[in-house]
């Protein structure tokens, strides 16, 4: 009886899955077009899955092995089951071998599902519950069912063992397994992640993120995509779910609700109304239409109500994601505060095993709010206005960019026209704290005899904050004008102590060069450049600072640009004792200063910089070393808990400047040293 039932079950499950697949693909196709290489993408799936995706999954060893056993076992078992039970192929010893293989595959899968079940027994808060709780049982049903029905095929049991009652029970178990694992895959069950995930890997919007066989590809693609401003009638940014590109929608659908993003999100931890996992699920709800009532994970925090209850928000593919200001109850798919809470720290993207691009999606939606609605919250509108009329976010006189350096006689590019290093100062020139860092950096460069020059009043804000606030128009205008300025001068590289300018100049300006031109200079963060100077022996350091320090990786230097090593190498060269925070390197926790978050200032239960300074205090370091003016400002704004010592916040340039060996060397004594004597005092004080 089973020989008749099994093929019917298998093929109807497959047929249903095919119908579901078509429906699912239709949902994705509501999105905007985005051309992809179809065949090349599909061919790349195995490698992208086995290498790149597993690179992320393997950060959790147990889970990674569990997934290999369960998913590998399932794919093998399903394939073999179609051959053995579905088509009844193979005879004699061939069928025997296939049967044994099938048994092995389903047994492996069963073993994997035991681990899935164990994790589900007392699941961490980040995992979604609901239908996900039945997944281990379904996995077991499938693997056990297939195992038992295969036993007769290898002759361990007689074909009619147990009679029709047993056969019926077995058929029911197999049906359950097939329902969850085969057509549940395309009809929106938990297994959807496998189907959507595979295609998402194939058609990812940032294929550069994946490694290639040649080993090339930096596996890093962090610059935001340019918004096309050519067509002046086109609506800008993403207003409705269907305004995303189709492969972004596909990406959202691939989410496995593992909550890794939630666990690392600083805004979520601070109790601001953002949870990246829920945000992605809300996009899926919007794409299919409906309400978020069925969401079974942690909701958005709400500073007033503790948690935002689910079921209040709803959306449609062509309806607005954020309710326009004119609507009365002000609820659509997500609240604007959710989108404005993000610091664009990219921790979620770094952790996501499905390689989903949360930050792209958030900025896309912010673009609509800023460019179409004029609804940038907090001080956002003021900052943007300042950028438009004064080229800096603080609204300072752009003619006063070098006032802080009146005594330093910095060489101007306009005078010298060429230099080894173009020193990009950033908007920190208007900030008294960051001026100390800049002075230190100038002192270090002079001590090393670096031939550098600055743009002075010709420099403008890099456009970073405008872009993260969604104002792509202002960003592009600043970018184009900065590019035109840079094109007038000759230099070997750009060095900056601001990771945001660094990222934008290095990764985002490329798209805005006029036809036929390209950026042909490397851009370095000052920590990298100083490290190069030390390695080249151009700096004489007097080690012996006995400080115990910890180092905070700025998001835009670390996760955005992969520079974790140079600052640490510099600290080692200084001879200080470096203690790492629990979350450092690619897992570094944001200071709360990115993405315009201090400007939009969405309230939460606590502040992100306070939490990060808590991390710092845990290490019992006397100083925290940073490499970013934003981080410095955020950390220095933290009031230490009563009774605690203040932890000093030092830029890495200040550390190096303080360690410079200033004892005169008989052989080489450049006149420059004398001229910077005053700067020395400033820094040491």
């Amino acid at each position, binding site marked *: 009886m089973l020989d008749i039932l099994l093929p019917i079950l298998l093929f109807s499950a497959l047929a249903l899955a095919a119908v579901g697949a078509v429906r699912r693909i239709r949902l994705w196709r509501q999105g905007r077009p985005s051309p992809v290489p179809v065949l090349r993408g599909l061919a790349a799936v195995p490698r992208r899955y086995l290498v790149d995706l597993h690179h992320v999954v393997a950060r959790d060893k147990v889970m990674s092995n569990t997934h290999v056993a369960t998913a590998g076992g399932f794919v093998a078992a399903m394939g073999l089951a179609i051959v053995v039970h579905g088509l009844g192929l193979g005879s004699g010893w061939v069928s025997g071998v296939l049967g044994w293989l099938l048994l092995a595959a389903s047994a492996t899968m069963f073993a994997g599902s035991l681990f899935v079940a164990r994790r589900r027994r007392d699941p961490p808060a980040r995992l979604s519950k609901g239908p996900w709780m039945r997944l281990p049982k379904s996995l077991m049903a499938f693997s056990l069912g297939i195992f038992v029905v295969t036993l007769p095929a290898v002759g361990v049991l007689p074909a009619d063992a147990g009679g029709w009652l047993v056969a019926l029970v077995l058929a029911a178990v197999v049906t359950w397994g097939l329902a969850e694992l085969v057509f549940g895959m395309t009809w929106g069950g938990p297994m959807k992640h496998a189907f959507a995930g595979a295609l998402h890997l194939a058609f990812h919007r940032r294929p550069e993120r994946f490694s290639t066989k040649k080993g090339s590809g930096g596996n890093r693609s962090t610059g935001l995509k340019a918004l096309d401003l050519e067509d002046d009638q086109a609506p800008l940014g993403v207003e409705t779910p269907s305004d995303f590109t189709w492969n972004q929608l596909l990406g959202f659908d691939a989410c496995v609700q593992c909550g890794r993003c939630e666990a690392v999100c600083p805004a979520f931890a601070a109790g601001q109304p953002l949870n990246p996992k829920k945000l992605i699920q809300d996009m899926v709800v919007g794409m299919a239409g409906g309400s978020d009532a069925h969401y079974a994970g942690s909701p958005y925090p709400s500073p007033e109500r503790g948690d935002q209850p689910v079921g209040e928000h709803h959306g449609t593919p062509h309806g607005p994601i954020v309710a326009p200001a004119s609507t009365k109850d002000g609820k659509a798919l997500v609240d604007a505060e959710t989108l404005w809470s993000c610091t664009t720290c990219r921790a979620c993207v770094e952790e996501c095993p499905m390689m989903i691009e949360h930050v792209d999606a958030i900025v896309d939606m912010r673009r609509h709010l800023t460019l*179409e609605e*004029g609804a940038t919250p907090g001080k956002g509108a003021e900052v943007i206005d300042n950028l438009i009329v004064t080229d800096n976010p603080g609204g300072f*006189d752009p003619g006063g960019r070098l006032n802080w350096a009146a005594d330093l006689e910095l060489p101007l590019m306009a005078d010298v026209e060429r230099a080894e290093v173009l020193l990009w100062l950033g908007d920190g020139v208007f900030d008294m704290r960051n001026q100390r860092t800049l002075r230190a950096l100038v002192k270090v460069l002079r001590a090393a005899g670096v031939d550098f020059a600055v743009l002075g009043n010709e420099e403008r804000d890099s456009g970073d904050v405008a872009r993260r606030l969604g104002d792509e128009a202002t960003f592009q205008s600043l970018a184009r004008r900065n590019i035109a300025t840079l094109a007038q001068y000759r230099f070997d590289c750009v060095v900056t102590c601001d990771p945001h300018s660094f990222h934008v100049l290095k990764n985002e300006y490329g798209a805005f060069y006029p036809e036929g031109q390209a950026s042909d200079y490397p851009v370095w963060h000052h920590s990298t450049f100083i490290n190069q100077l030390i390695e080249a022996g151009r700096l004489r350091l007097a080690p012996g600072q006995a400080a115990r320090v910890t180092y905070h990786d700025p998001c835009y230097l670390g996760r955005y640009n992969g520079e974790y090593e140079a600052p640490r190498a510099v600290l080692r060269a200084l001879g200080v004792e470096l203690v790492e925070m629990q979350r450092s390197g690619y897992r570094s926790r944001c200071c709360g200063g990115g993405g315009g978050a201090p400007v939009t200032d969405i309230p939460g239960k606590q502040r992100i910089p306070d939490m990060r300074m808590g991390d710092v205090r845990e290490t019992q370091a006397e100083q925290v070393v940073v490499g970013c003016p934003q981080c410095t400002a955020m950390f220095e704004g933290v009031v230490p808990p009563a009774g605690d010592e203040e932890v000093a916040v030092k830029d890495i340039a200040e550390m190096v400047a303080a360690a410079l060996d200033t004892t005169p060397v008989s052989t080489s004594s450049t006149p420059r040293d004398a001229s910077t004597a005053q700067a020395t005092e400033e820094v040491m004080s």
Partner: protein
Amino acid sequence: MQPESAMTPGLEVTVLVSVGRHPLTGRARRADQDARGVELARSLADAQVRLLHAGMRDESSEAALRGYLGMGFTELSLLEQSEGADVLPALAEALDAASPHLVITGERAERGEGSGLLPYLLAERLGWPLVSGLAAVESVEDGVATLLQALPRGQRRRLKVRLPVIVTVDDAAPAPRQSAYGPARRGAFEATAGPVSADDEWASWHVQPARPRPKRLKIVKAASARDRFKAAAAKAEGGSGQVLTDVTPTQGAEAILTLLREEDVLR
């Protein structure tokens, strides 16, 4: 804000908008007070708001005027004028023809003469009443508007005025909303050629950037917090000056020195 029922449906409002000038960089932008006027107009329920500008049309002025379109308008009426022309006749004619109920404008322009006289001259030409320094329009009923006028030190005065009326706003009016780039660049200019009257006098003037005048320091001798607060909130009082005419340079210098000693600048 205001109860919607208090508004007459179909209230026609014209906001006169000018090309502003940023005080630090001199770049063209939406003028701050005019933008506040637009914001005030936007907050009126059931009002049909029209933007009107008279002036030269070039790239930078267009970009600045788009700043008003970005506050949620699809079009802006433009009376094209030559450079340095007197816009008064053109505006008066256009307002006379359109006869709106309410005309809102900023107290003074950020470029050109910036004398702040235009609203008064317009009111005179049209024979309409004028209310300056408006903080809010509270209601409009049966052709009578109830207005809230801002006075120094946060005081407010309620006025009833028969329409049509010209009102001007200054920094006491609500801050303008953000100008959104998308609507700003999609918005259209409805250009009409009005009468152009050359301003010969203006053409003969020599214009140069003003230098910031030094501010007089206020010396507060207050014993209590209340006195200090009153002193801080008080309007600066001038009036104790002295005009010297027909004096020799030495006498003038003596007078200045005496003053500087009195003020403790020289000791």
